[in-house]
């Protein structure tokens, strides 16, 4: 009798979990619809700006001699960096079997996929003649031209292809049991789609074993791929003999920065989900506290790399490098540099380092600060070096145009829009993983 009571209690809890986590999939509040309309409007405006650029040519953007990389490459590095939030963090937490990860992983993995979709667009936007993008792909052609395999741009393409493929599968595999469960509860087109996407999942022990094995293996692989992807993005810079780019620590510096900005993005997404989807019971202060500590650790690592990079350049006193160093430290880019240090180190250090100050609100504030700081970091890597080449006669300036601002704004709106649509289609917390843990 006692066992029966216990059993029925367990069922009630599981029903509550399912009810709570499936609730966001049904209906749409006025707030939600307003957000979708606003984000869609900004995305459409960005598409119009891109269309304008395609029609009139890349000259409508502010990039020109000597600054040939501007907002597009800054945004590319920024979004690929944030993409590390998901798959990398999720993979580390899966491999270390951190129990608290379970409500966090799917939200994180979705960030990766969306950021890669957005970040991966920027090299295409930056091409100008986007319709020729396939020239990067190695294919037999009558001009007997093949891509240059020594070019970091080809490395980028292969790295992003692998990371995108791995991340989509890493998000999709643990979604299958939830899709099967939702297929039973849904009808019409939705039910049909869930049934097809669940691939005939029955919940047999063979399937669970295969899932666990696949996820463990994938986590290890994704970890290696994620590190390599941002290293390859760093190689785009460090392979050229340009002042303050040609550095051996660029790859780990970029990886550390990517994880740093990724955690900040994850915190903000989780806070939004917690507030708007009423998931306070699932996304608890413990999750934010743990991510806050990770953010603090990454802030310290980032500061260490930044200091090492700047100290080496200053001490070397190489004329080409010191010019770039000077404009960054006390020249035209000084305000951006010190704002970056404040956002990436001072603010997170105070808000996250003092235990009494570490609340969900302050962790979110620190995360916003980190995202601003990391965008500035990417700006400071790209623009000062290009605007100050070794010969002073070649120095120039860069002013972004409305097209670049619009496309940049559009990507932030696109990220929000993709997330808004995702939470309406799929449970943002893996139901089976959560139930398994409780």
């Amino acid at each position, binding site marked *: 009798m006692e066992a029966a009571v216990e059993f029925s209690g367990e069922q009630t809890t599981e029903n509550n979990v399912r009810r709570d986590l499936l609730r966001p999939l049904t209906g749409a509040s006025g707030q939600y619809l307003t957000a979708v309309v606003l984000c869609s409007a900004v995305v459409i405006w960005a598409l119009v700006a891109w269309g304008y650029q395609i029609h009139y040519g890349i000259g409508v953007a502010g990039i020109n001699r000597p600054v040939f990389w501007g907002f597009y490459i800054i945004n590319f590095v920024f979004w690929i960096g944030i993409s590390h939030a998901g798959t990398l963090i999720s993979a580390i937490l899966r491999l270390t079997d951190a129990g608290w990860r379970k409500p966090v992983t799917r939200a994180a993995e979705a960030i990766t996929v969306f950021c890669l979709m957005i970040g991966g667009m920027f090299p295409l936007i930056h091409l100008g003649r986007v319709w020729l993008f396939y020239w990067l792909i190695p294919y037999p052609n009558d001009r007997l031209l093949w891509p240059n395999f020594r070019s970091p741009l080809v490395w980028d393409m292969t*790295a992003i292809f692998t990371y995108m*493929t791995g991340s989509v599968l890493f998000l999709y*595999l643990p979604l299958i049991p939830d899709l099967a469960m939702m297929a039973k509860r849904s009808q019409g087109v939705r039910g049909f789609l869930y049934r097809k996407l669940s*691939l005939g999942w*029955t919940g047999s022990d063979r399937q669970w074993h295969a899932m666990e094995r696949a996820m463990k293996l994938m986590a290890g692989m994704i970890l290696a791929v994620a590190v390599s992807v941002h290293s390859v993005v760093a190689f785009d810079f460090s392979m050229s003999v340009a002042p303050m780019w040609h550095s051996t620590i660029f790859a780990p510096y970029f990886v550390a920065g990517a994880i740093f900005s990724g955690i900040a993005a994850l915190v903000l997404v989780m806070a939004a989900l917690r507030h708007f989807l009423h998931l306070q019971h699932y996304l608890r202060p413990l999750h934010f506290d743990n991510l806050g500590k990770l953010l603090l650790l990454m802030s310290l690592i980032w500061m260490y790399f930044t200091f090492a990079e700047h100290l080496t350049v200053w001490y070397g006193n190489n004329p080409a490098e010191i010019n770039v160093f000077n404009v960054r430290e006390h020249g035209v880019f000084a305000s951006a540099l010190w704002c970056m240090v404040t956002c990436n180190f001072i603010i997170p250090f105070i808000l996250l380092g003092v235990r009494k100050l570490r609340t969900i609100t302050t962790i979110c504030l620190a995360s916003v600060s980190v995202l601003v700081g990391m965008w500035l970091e990417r700006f400071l890597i790209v623009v000062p070096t290009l605007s100050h080449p070794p010969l002073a006669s070649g120095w120039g300036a860069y002013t972004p145009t409305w097209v670049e601002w619009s496309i940049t704004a559009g990507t932030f709106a696109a990220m929000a829009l993709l997330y808004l649509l995702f939470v309406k289609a799929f449970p943002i917390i893996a139901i089976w993983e959560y139930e398994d843990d409780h």
Partner: protein
Amino acid sequence: MIINAAFRNVEQVSGAIALLRQYGTNANQMEIFSSKPVELKPGVLDRTSKMSLIAVLAAIFVGSLVTTFIYYTQRDYPLVTGGMPLTSGWATGVVTFELTMAGAILGTVFMFIWESGLMKKSRCPAPDLPESGMILQIECDADVDTVVNMLQGCGAMDVDTLEKS
């Protein structure tokens, strides 16, 4: 015949499996269905897997294919390199690494689909998943009544039998 027996917990289902195996039922004739993973002790109902092996083989295959492709492309269609070597192990290494990992990932996913039997028609119809607890399915050719009695003795709450289609 197919027998579906509902159990509340892992201990009961483990006991039933041990008893059935003593009785001569093969591990391949038994399957547990649940809405979340069931952690059984090693040796109870082990499932062998070649997933890691296939992932490594897929990685080696794709990696070798890519390296060969890059080598011959660079050699047969040489670019102007300005004195740099025509083929470079360092640069090729990056592309090889990325696509080797792609091979491993795709190999793993292929094996996941293969070993889990997804997208394949099952010999036995899967029971409806319980919200909690688990169902042990046995493909039984022997004395059905004896098996049903054994399952009930191990704590099965509900036992259904149906004809194999």
